[in-house]
């Protein structure tokens, strides 16, 4: 049996980053939770997921091509914008 190729930390970072991004969309109610098939709103959890994604993207940044870097920046910005919009909506509803 041939030894399998080792997983470098950057591949792991990319994978985890995608998970956090997906999780943030789910907690903002834009995507259904794959476990339940239902959408839900949990902004505090979404915030944590975005924070983590932001941190991971920062670590990954030096290894990204400029085009890829811009793409991640755009995705994170979209997340944050949507988070802020959702937060506004929630505040409005509370009033």
């Amino acid at each position, binding site marked *: 049996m041939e030894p399998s190729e080792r997983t470098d930390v950057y591949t792991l970072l990319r994978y985890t980053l995608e998970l956090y991004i997906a999780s943030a969309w789910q907690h903002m109610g834009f995507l259904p939770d794959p476990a339940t098939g239902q959408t839900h709103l949990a902004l505090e959890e979404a915030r944590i997921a*975005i924070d983590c994604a932001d941190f991971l993207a920062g670590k990954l940044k030096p290894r990204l091509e400029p085009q890829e870097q811009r793409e991640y*920046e755009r995705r994170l910005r979209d997340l*944050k*914008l949507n988070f*802020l*919009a959702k937060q506004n909506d929630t*505040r*409005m509803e509370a009033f």
Partner: protein
Amino acid sequence: MGMIVWARTLAQGIRKGVLQVQAIGRVYWTRAHTVWQSLPETAREQIRHWRGAGVAFPIEEQRALLAEYYERFERLAELICDAAFAGEGAPFQQEYAQVRRWLLRAYPHLKPYLTAHLNCDPSDAEFGKRTAGKATDAMEALFVAETLDEVIRYDQGDLIGRLERARSALYRYGDYLREVIAPSG
């Protein structure tokens, strides 16, 4: 006695003259400084100003300006977004000030063309009045405040919509320019 009075008058006259010269100097320095500050950044811009052809802005140059403007705008949007998400503007203030300086300088050149593509909302003008004492459009309202903290603090829930309106206007203006250029190219 007469001599002393005469000497004092002379001294007072000299002092008054010096003060006047200083005041005039200050006025001229302020004027010169203002003119220097308002000078366009590039030689090409300068020549256009001297020729008084500020109104006719060649399409290719509009496109070049828009491309550069769009990049800075995206950076601004990112900074606003990060600051709003973090709930404080201080960590991003230095870069905001830098981007703002550039946008304040470039926007007057772009505004006459962009206005046609910009959706209006009363909250944009109100935001400008609250922060800078003058009505602003959606784009200006994003960088009219001196600090990023003000951008967040004075927001009444319109910030995200404003960002979207400004970005859409840039997209539409870009599309328009592409359409104008396409037949000839």
